[in-house]
C-alpha cells in the first residue's frame, strides 16, 4: 500500500489570509485520464482533497462548464448531469480550513461538515459553483439551504425534500413533483430546457459508474487485503468530484490493477464501519482503522454511488429516477428504515461476514447517533463486539482513537 501522503500544510506555512496555491490540473483532466497506477490516482485524489478551492470544478469551469454543488447523502445527480452541468459532492472543507465565520451563523453544537460548508460559502471558496442542492437528510442540511439563500443570494440553492413514507402510492408522484421543482431551477441555471432524452443518456452513464463501484465494493468485502481502506475511499470519493466520464475509465483501470494484486492476507479482524454516511472521517483516521488490525469489509462511505444497482430509463426516465429512490431499501441513518434496525444491522453483518462493528459517527450528527443505540442492542443480542467513536473534520491527534481501536482489535484477537 502506498504510504499515506502528508499533504496540505499550506495553512501552516503561508501567512494567514493568502489564498493557497491551487493544484495545477489541466483543464481537460489529463492527469486523471493519464493516471495509470492506483498509486498515482490516490496521490491525485489526495491533492484534490487537500485543496479547498475545488480544483476539479475550476478545471471544468475553465472549459466553460457549469457546476452544481450537492450536499451529501443522496441527490439525483443524474438530473444535473442531464443538463451537461457537473454535479459535485460537497463534503466539507477538510482539516485545513479555518472556521471563523460559520460558527457564528450556525451555532456551536453542529457537525463539522455543515460549518465548513458554510465557511466556504462565506469566504468565496464556493464561488466556482453555479447552484447548490441540499437534500433533506437532516435538519442541519435542510436549514443550510435557507442560510445559503441569504448569504449567497446570487447562486440559487434548492432544498430537496426526500420522502420518508415508502409505502404510499402517492410517494413517487410526489417525488417526481419535487424533482420537477428542482428541474425548473436547473433549467434557469443551465439556460436550456430539460430533456427526457438527455436524462436517459445520463442514467446510462451513471449505470456504468455504479456497476464499477459495485465491483470495487465487492472486492473490498471479499478480498480486503487487495485494496486498502484509504485507496477504496479515495476511488469512491473521486466519483463525486470528477466528471463521470473521467471517473468511469479511471475506476476501470484501477479495478484491473486491484483485482490482480498479489498481497498477503494479514491476520486482521473483519469489521463493518457504520455512521460516516455524510461527514467523512479524515484519511488518517481511516488509515488508523486498518493500521491497528481491522479490515473494513462493509461501510457507509460514499453511498451516493451505490444507492441502487442500476436504473432502467424506461419510458419516463424521470419517474424511473424517482422510483429507484423510493423503492431501493437502504438502511442508513438519514432514511427511515422500513424493517427494524435490529434486522437491518444483523443482515448487514452477515452479508459482510464481519466479526465486529465499528461505529464512526460524526460529532453532533444526530441521525447517526440515534441509530447506534438500536444497533448496539441488536449486536449485543448476538454477541458481536462493537466500538463507538466520534470524529470531527479537524483532528490532529489520534491518541484517543488509537487507544480505543487498539483495545477493540486486541479484544477480538487475543485471548
Amino acid at each position, binding site marked *: 500500500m502506498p504510504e499515506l501522503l502528508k499533504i496540505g500544510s499550506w495553512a501552516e506555512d503561508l501567512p494567514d489570509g493568502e489564498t493557497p496555491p491551487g493544484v495545477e490540473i489541466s483543464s481537460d483532466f489529463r492527469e486523471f485520464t493519464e493516471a495509470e497506477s492506483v498509486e498515482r490516482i490516490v496521490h491525485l485524489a489526495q491533492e484534490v482533497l487537500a485543496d479547498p478551492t475545488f480544483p476539479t470544478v475550476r478545471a471544468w469551469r475553465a472549459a466553460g462548464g457549469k457546476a452544481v454543488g450537492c450536499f451529501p447523502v443522496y441527490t439525483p445527480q443524474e438530473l444535473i448531469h442531464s443538463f451537461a452541468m457537473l454535479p459535485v459532492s460537497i463534503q466539507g472543507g477538510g482539516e485545513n480550513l479555518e472556521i471563523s465565520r460559520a*460558527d*457564528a*451563523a*450556525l*451555532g*456551536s*453544537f*453542529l457537525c463539522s461538515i*455543515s460549518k465548513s460548508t458554510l465557511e466556504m460559502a462565506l469566504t468565496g471558496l464556493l464561488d466556482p459553483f453555479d447552484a447548490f442542492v441540499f437534500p*433533506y*437528510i*437532516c*435538519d*442541519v442540511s*435542510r*436549514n*443550510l*439551504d*435557507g*442560510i445559503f*439563500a*441569504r*448569504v449567497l443570494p446570487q447562486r440559487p440553492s434548492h*432544498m430537496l*425534500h426526500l*420522502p*420518508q*413514507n*415508502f*409505502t*404510499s*402510492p*402517492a*410517494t413517487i*408522484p*410526489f417525488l417526481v*413533483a*419535487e424533482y420537477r*421543482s428542482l428541474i425548473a431551477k436547473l433549467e434557469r441555471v443551465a439556460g436550456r430546457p430539460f430533456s427526457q432524452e438527455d436524462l436517459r443518456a445520463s442514467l446510462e452513464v451513471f449505470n456504468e459508474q455504479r456497476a464499477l463501484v459495485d465491483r470495487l465494493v465487492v472486492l473490498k468485502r471479499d478480498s480486503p487485503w487487495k485494496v486498502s481502506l484509504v485507496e477504496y475511499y479515495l476511488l469512491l470519493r473521486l466519483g463525486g468530484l470528477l466528471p463521470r466520464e473521467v471517473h468511469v475509465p479511471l475506476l476501470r483501470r484501477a479495478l484491473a490493477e486491484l483485482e490482480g494484486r498479489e498481497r498477503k492476507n494479514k491476520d486482521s479482524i473483519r469489521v463493518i464501519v457504520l455512521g460516516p454516511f455524510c461527514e467523512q472521517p479524515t484519511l488518517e483516521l481511516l488509515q488508523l482503522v486498518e493500521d491497528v488490525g481491522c479490515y473494513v469489509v462493509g461501510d457507509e462511505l460514499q453511498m451516493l454511488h451505490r444507492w441502487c444497482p442500476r436504473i432502467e430509463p424506461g419510458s419516463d426516465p424521470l419517474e424511473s429516477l424517482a422510483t429507484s429512490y423510493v423503492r431501493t431499501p437502504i438502511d442508513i*441513518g*438519514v432514511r*427511515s*428504515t422500513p424493517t*427494524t*434496525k*435490529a434486522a437491518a444491522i444483523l443482515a448487514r453483518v452477515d452479508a459482510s461476514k464481519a466479526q465486529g462493528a465499528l461505529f464512526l*459517527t460524526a*460529532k*453532533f450528527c*444526530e*441521525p447517526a*447517533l*440515534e*441509530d*447506534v*443505540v*438500536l444497533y*448496539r442492542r441488536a449486536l449485543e443480542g448476538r454477541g458481536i463486539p462493537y466500538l*463507538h467513536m*466520534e470524529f470531527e473534520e479537524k483532528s490532529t491527534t489520534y491518541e484517543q482513537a488509537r487507544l480505543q481501536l487498539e483495545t477493540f482489535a486486541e479484544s477480538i484477537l487475543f485471548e
Partner: protein
Amino acid sequence: MAEGASAPAVPGGVSRSFLRDARGLQRKLVEEYYGELASTDPPRRPVAYMLVGGNLTEILRSFGYDVVFPEIVALNCAIKHQSLENILHAESLGYGLDVCGYVKNDLGLQDLGGKTSFGQIPRPDLLVCSFSGCYVYVKWWEALAESYGAPLFMFDVPYMREETPRKEDIAYLVSQLWELVHLLEKRTGRAFDMDELKRVLAESRRAEDGWVEFLRAGRLRPSPIEAYFESIFYMFPINVLRGTPGAADFYDVVNEEVRARVRDGNYPLPEEKVRVLVEGVPPYTNYRTFWDFFRKWGAVSVVATYPKVGGLFDRGFRHDPSRPFESIAEYSLGAYVNQSWPLRRKIIADYVKEYEVDAVIIHGIKSCRSFTAGQGDLRDWLIHDQGVPTLYIESDHQDPRYFAPAQIKNRMDAFFESLEQRRAVSAAAGAAPG
C-alpha cells in the same frame, strides 16, 4: 442599570401575581388528562403516540384514540425537575451527549417504566410520526417502534419552502391521511365516520379562535400577557386537547382573565419597559430563573415563536370542517419549524412590526438542530438588516447541565443595560436637540 445593593442583590422569587384562574384550570386539565391516561379501568381506549408539529389529533380522536405527546410528557418532566435522571439513564443506554434532550428524556423515561410524578404514561398501541419540521422525529419514532414493537405510521410532511404549498404536496398528504384512516379502520374495527371528524374539527376551530385571541393580546401596550412564559402554561390544550370542548372552553376562561387584567390594570409587570420577541424553545428546567432575568429589567415578551410549533393559527390558519382532509394537510405543513429560513425570517419581521417589538431574544438549544441551526444567522439578519437589537443565548430545553445561570444572566444584564443606556442617550438627545 441596576442599583447596587447593601444586601445581597439576588432577585429571586419575583411575584407572578398577574396569573389567576387560568393557571389553576390548566393545572387541573393536565392532571385530569394524565390521570385518565393512567387509569387502568377497563375498557381502555387505544393509545397513539404523536408529535406536536403537524399532529393528527383530530383523526385519531374521531376513532376514539387517546393521544400521548412524548414531547409534552418530557417538558412536564423538565419543568418538574425530573428530566436529568431520565437523560442520564438514556445516556447509559448509549444515547450520546448531543442527542435531542426530548428524545433522551422520553426514551430514558420509557426504559425506566414510564412513571412520572403526574401519572403513569401508558404504552402505545400505535405510533403516528408526523414528520413535520424535525428530522429527529423520524429517529425518535423508529426507536419507539423498536422498543414497543408497536406499528409505526410515517406521515411524511413536505418542508415548506414557498408560502403556498404545491398541489402535489396536498395530494401527497391527503393520500397519506386516507392511508392512516384505513389503518385505523383495520385496527379498531370501526368504520371511518366523516361526521364525527367534522364535529371534532369544529371544536378544534373554536379552540383555535380562542388561542389566537390570547396570543394577539400581546399587541396591546402594555401587553396584558407574557406571550412566551405564559404560553408554556397554555399551550397544552391547543396541542393536546384540541378537538375536545374542554380546549375551547379553556381559552374562554383565559381570555376572560386577560380582559380582566386590562380592566384592573393587572399587568405582568408594573412597568413594561421593553417589549421583547422570544425565538426558540424555552429552557424548561430553569424557566422561572430565566423569567426572572427578564422581569428584573422590565422586559415583557409580547410575542414568541415557540408557541407556534403546534401551528401558525395566528397567521390565519384554521381547521375547516368543510374541507376536512385538505385543512388537516395544510395544518401539518404549517408547523413553525416546518418553515424554511426565508419564511421564518418573514414571520419574525412581521411580528416585530405587528407587536411593536423593541428587542429580540433568541434562545438556542444545544441539543436541537431543527430550531437552532441558523439562529446565529437570524441574529445577524435582525441586527444588520432589520436594525432590531438582538441577543443570542444558549442552553438546553431539557438538560439542566447546560443551563449556566451566571453566564446567561450576565449576557441578559449587559443586553438590557445597553438598551437602557442607548434609550437614555437618545432621550437626552431628543430633549435637548443640538
